[in-house]
């Protein structure tokens, strides 16, 4: 049986180009290109490294998003992944992380029912837009497999049954061991993602698209309706907060007033 790896990949707006509409306070996504989330590129790379070294490894990349999220599947396949799945449905808009992980779990289980058991799941630590870092652990729980977060190095045994991982924590690294199947969340330190290959770009790409009906999910159980968390408002801070001139007759007074203001605003 093949060693089946799932990579969860999200398309995110190129965060360096995102601007805020000063009038409405909302994010201007128009004209901002979507890119593969940075940590997910590391997640994919680690899966590809396993495939480089071992026979019979099959990599499926799963993304939930709008139709253009298919671009991240093209990119992943061009780098060497075998298959891509796009989960797209208007009903999925405003899903929180609980629903996102439920949808990903359902898709992964559907794939496994048709193709065979999953041996390993890779996700990124966090997506640069939603930024919660919650989907990885939640998905592991929904799949009922152990999780290892913040992986900065990854090694799999010859028999592919045991994984040794270094986790990057604050000020130290923790070495852990776990059996497959498990879910690993990748950070930037894990590896250096490769570039796409031309010959992969021209080969036919296996991409499947599923909506919630394909997954057997109700519209009420996903999106805003199915999410336990709800965003009630989103807004920029007052501009007046910016451009505050710090008073003071001397450097010492200015420094003291600055530090007091920073403390008051809980910045330090």
């Amino acid at each position, binding site marked *: 049986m093949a060693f089946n790896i799932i990579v969860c990949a999200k398309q995110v707006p190129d965060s360096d180009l995102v601007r805020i509409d000063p009038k409405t306070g909302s994010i201007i996504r128009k004209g901002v290109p979507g890119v593969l989330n940075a940590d997910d590129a590391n997640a994919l790379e680690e899966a590809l490294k396993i495939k480089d070294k071992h026979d019979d490894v099959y990599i499926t990349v799963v993304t939930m998003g709008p139709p253009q999220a298919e671009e991240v599947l093209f990119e992943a396949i061009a780098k060497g992944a075998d298959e891509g799945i796009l989960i797209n449905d208007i009903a999925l808009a405003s899903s929180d992380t609980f629903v996102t992980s439920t949808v990903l779990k359902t898709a992964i289980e559907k794939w496994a029912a048709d193709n065979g058991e999953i041996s390993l799941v890779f996700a990124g630590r966090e997506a640069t837009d939603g930024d919660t870092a919650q989907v990885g652990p939640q998905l592991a729980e929904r799949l009922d497999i152990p999780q290892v977060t913040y992986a900065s190095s990854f090694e799999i045994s010859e028999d592919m049954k045991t994984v040794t991982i270094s986790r990057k924590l604050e000020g130290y690294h*923790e070495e852990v061991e776990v059996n497959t199947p498990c879910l690993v969340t990748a950070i930037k330190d894990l590896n250096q993602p490769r570039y796409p290959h031309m010959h992969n770009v021209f080969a036919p790409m296996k991409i499947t698209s599923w909506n919630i009906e394909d997954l057997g999910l109700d519209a009420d159980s996903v999106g805003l309706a199915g999410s336990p968390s709800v965003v009630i408002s989103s807004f920029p801070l007052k501009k007046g907060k910016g451009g505050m001139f710090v008073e003071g007759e001397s450097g010492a007074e200015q420094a003291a007033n600055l530090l007091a203001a920073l403390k008051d605003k809980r910045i330090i």
Partner: protein
Amino acid sequence: MTDKTYRDLWVFAEQNDGVLAPASAQLLGEGTRLVKDMDGDNTLCAVVAGNEEDSRQAAADAIAYGAKKVYVIADENLTNYTTDGYTKAVCAAITEYNPDIVLYGATPQGRDLAPRIAARLGLGLTADCTRLDIKADDYIAYAQAETMLDPSTLDLDDVLLKQTKPSFGGKLMATMVCPKTKPQMATVRPGVMDSLQKDPAATGEIVAVNAGITAEDIRVTVKGKTVDAADGVALADAEIIVAGGRGLGDASGFELLQKLADKIGGVVATSGAPIDAGWIDESLMIGQTGTIVRPRIYIACGISGSIQHLAGIENSETIIAINTDKDVPIFEIADYCIVGDLYEVVPELIEHWDEYITK
């Protein structure tokens, strides 16, 4: 939701070898304030997991920092933090005692644990909050004083926990509620809330919880820990950056900035001009052709704020600029502008910083 009664505010008391994490002490401080605003009769509680000795010590710490009651899951299988062990432990306590709110520090451990618990219990979870309100009036006062939000457009109550968090590198704030599930849960950014003065004489009730944890529950084995060498942080990841420009006058100015960076846990960087002058290595340049950064605090010393430089710092949460000229572009995007000589201001910051930081 069932018709169970949910009450009390819980803080997950993260401990390392029996020492309560600062983030948890801060949450107990915040919890002391919030618990009074909750509907009905509520108690500030902590929940601790660990082996016998560590959990006893951490429970005592939690009481000293304000917890009135501590739920303790003591088990040799919980000596190391593991997702599996701690999830089972905390879920057992939650399902037995039904808290209304559970808060976790948004530390690496809290952000590993809380989502796993939320998924197991089917709960909402808000990530990395920097502000919590229960009373609508408190939230409205905040919105009016500090934000562009018009709170009159919202339908607010005095019951749900309003969880506010930065997103898109602090460009935008979002407020979330979890109206459908209980307990309401959030992770909260370390360093934002204030802890109370530690009171070793404080007393509180200890409630032992049996979670029936077995060695088989724990599927990930901790093999060891290696402490990181204390060398430089990559610019792109740095939380605090002290950058210097042509206004430093010469290369030795960077030594002063390094002293400030050392004091406040930051790293030194540069604008384009010092590189052209040969004062510092090119790898430390921030901007369009250099590194794009997103620190929590960016301090620009003697930098005018060229378009190329600003392109690299816009995602900073707080920008502080020091410049002798009041009309420079950097002041248009800085949050705090100091018109003055950096050589008079920076040494004062170094000298007095410790007096102001929140412990």
